[in-house]
């Protein structure tokens, strides 16, 4: 499967043509995809915020933002600017260092996790061998940031919110990791590229959602819980806890939490589409279309076309899931904390364990379908 655009190689060759050594070329190359992904993540957040406002308005039969730009598309930028110029307040009795470090610790692991999100065969920052495991490990750092900001705020509600966030995150991490493990078992690899390639055989029919329906649902529920989206937004349950761990935050520090939660939502949606919905794959394999039209698969035109289809498909699938998440947020009530922990420990954990066991059994019984 060594095909597709390799921008890094072409870029390095171009710089070498200009007379630079390969090391310098590599160093010049390194920040480019990182910056690109960072910009993509932030733009994705802006789009999601706009979608959230518009869809919630539709769900409540309102119009939603209307005056800032056409259909209010500039509203998220106005929000961001407002947060940027707001006064940065640290409460007098708060612990200044931890208060500042908390939001950073929440945001950084989420952004680091974009390292492994592929938009095409070679369109990702780094194809690290441990791939999806890196994301699981990084997402386990986040509760420390939440606990830190909850503690540093010196406020009962904040502390309770932080504790809830940590408890929730720990309990839902286990079924999440177990359902990822079932996918890894089928792929024989932790790399996100391999996971997508394993699903690319027969277009939509070979997507993992057909082979792992239980895993898909468990993963999606856990991903929503990890993002603290509404059916599971107990850490910031506004009727009980004011705003949870972010009660005392204002200005840019609050914006970091806000940004972090939305980037995390998009990241989760992207990962669901990578793990279960074929990643960048078109419902009908692009190779089949090219064969049908009698076009050579390695022609530059086809390569560019495939790459753009890949990016469009990944983003489309992710935003479909974001849409479902937003719809869920504005139509479902919040669960109680005991219901939340019951769901995690007594329902999702056994189900995902059974799913893993059944997947292993099916892999032994039908290696051509479940072996990868």
């Amino acid at each position: 499967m060594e095909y597709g655009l390799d921008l890094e190689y072409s870029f390095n060759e171009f710089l070498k043509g200009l007379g630079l050594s390969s090391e310098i070329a590599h160093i010049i190359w390194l920040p480019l995809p990182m910056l690109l992904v960072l910009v993509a993540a932030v733009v994705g957040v802006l789009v999601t915020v706009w979608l959230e406002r518009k869809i919630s308005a539709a769900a409540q039969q309102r119009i939603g933002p209307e005056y800032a730009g056409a259909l209010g598309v500039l509203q998220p930028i106005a929000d961001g600017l407002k947060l940027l110029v707001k006064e940065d307040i640290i409460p007098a009795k708060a612990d200044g260092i931890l208060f500042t470090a908390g939001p950073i610790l929440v945001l950084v692991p989420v952004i680091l996790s974009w390292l492994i999100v592929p938009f095409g065969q070679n369109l990702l920052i780094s194809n690290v061998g441990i791939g999806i495991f890196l994301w699981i490990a990084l997402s386990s750092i986040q509760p420390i940031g939440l606990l830190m900001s909850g503690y540093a705020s010196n406020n009962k509600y904040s502390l309770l919110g932080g504790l809830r966030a940590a408890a929730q995150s720990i309990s839902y991490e286990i079924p999440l990791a177990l359902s990822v493990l079932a996918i890894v078992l089928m792929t024989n690899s932790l790399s996100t590229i391999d996971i997508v390639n394993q699903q690319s055989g027969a277009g939509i029919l070979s997507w993992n959602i057909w082979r792992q329906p239980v895993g898909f649902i468990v993963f999606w529920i856990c991903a929503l819980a990890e993002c603290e989206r509404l059916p599971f937004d107990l850490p910031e349950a506004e009727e009980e806890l004011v705003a949870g761990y972010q009660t005392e935050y204002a200005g840019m520090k609050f914006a970091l939490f806000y940004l972090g939660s939305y980037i995390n939502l998009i990241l989760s949606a992207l990962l669901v589409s990578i793990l279960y919905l074929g990643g960048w794959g078109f419902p009908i394999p692009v190779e089949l279309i090219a064969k049908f039209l009698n076009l050579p698969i390695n022609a530059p035109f086809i390569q560019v076309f495939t790459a753009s289809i890949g990016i469009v498909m990944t983003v489309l699938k992710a935003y479909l899931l974001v849409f479902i998440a937003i719809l869920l947020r504005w139509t479902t009530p919040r669960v109680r904390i005991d219901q939340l922990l019951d769901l995690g420990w007594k329902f999702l954990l056994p189900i995902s364990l059974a799913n893993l066991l059944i997947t292993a059994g099916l892999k032994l019984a039908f290696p051509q379908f479940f072996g990868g």
Partner: protein
Amino acid sequence: MSIAITTQFICFTVLSLVVIIGALGVVLLESIVYSAFLLGGVFMSVAGLYLLLNASFVAAAQVLVYVGAVNVLIIFAIMLVNKKEDLKPINDIKSRRIISTSICLTLLSLLIRVDLTNVWSLSSPQNSIGEESTIRIGEHLFSDYLLPFEVASVLLLMAMIGAIVLARRDVMSKDISTGLPVDQELIEKSSEPLLTNKN
């Protein structure tokens, strides 16, 4: 590869400094909360050192287990019982500090001796497996390290069952601390009145 080696050296220096200073902070700081958070930083830096040694799976496992589980639980426990109380001054604090320092220095000298006597250079440095290491770790866990692996899991299971029994005293027919019979009808209710208001 001079740039790569320089980067590696800078990363190693920074990580080692963070480990040493962080570990000192964990021991010496008065505030237990700061100590707990610094411990997380130390674990992260150790994971970074693993990463420098091309052991990415071990590094990620270190982050997941030590930062994501152990450290979060430590902080969680500290915050659940976070009473702002002044600890009682200990009488013979000086002699205790001297004894603990001497024990630590003895251990340090032992480590230094290991460092000096062991042969660290690998037979063939080109033989590093890098990304393959995940598969190798799995193979070892299911062949020659199978028994220690299983014994460790049994140990963890025992610890977990013990913790559950200690935390949920109402599953026993007799209360552990008072020796009185427990009212089994109230088993789903809070265990506090169950244990204390018995005559």
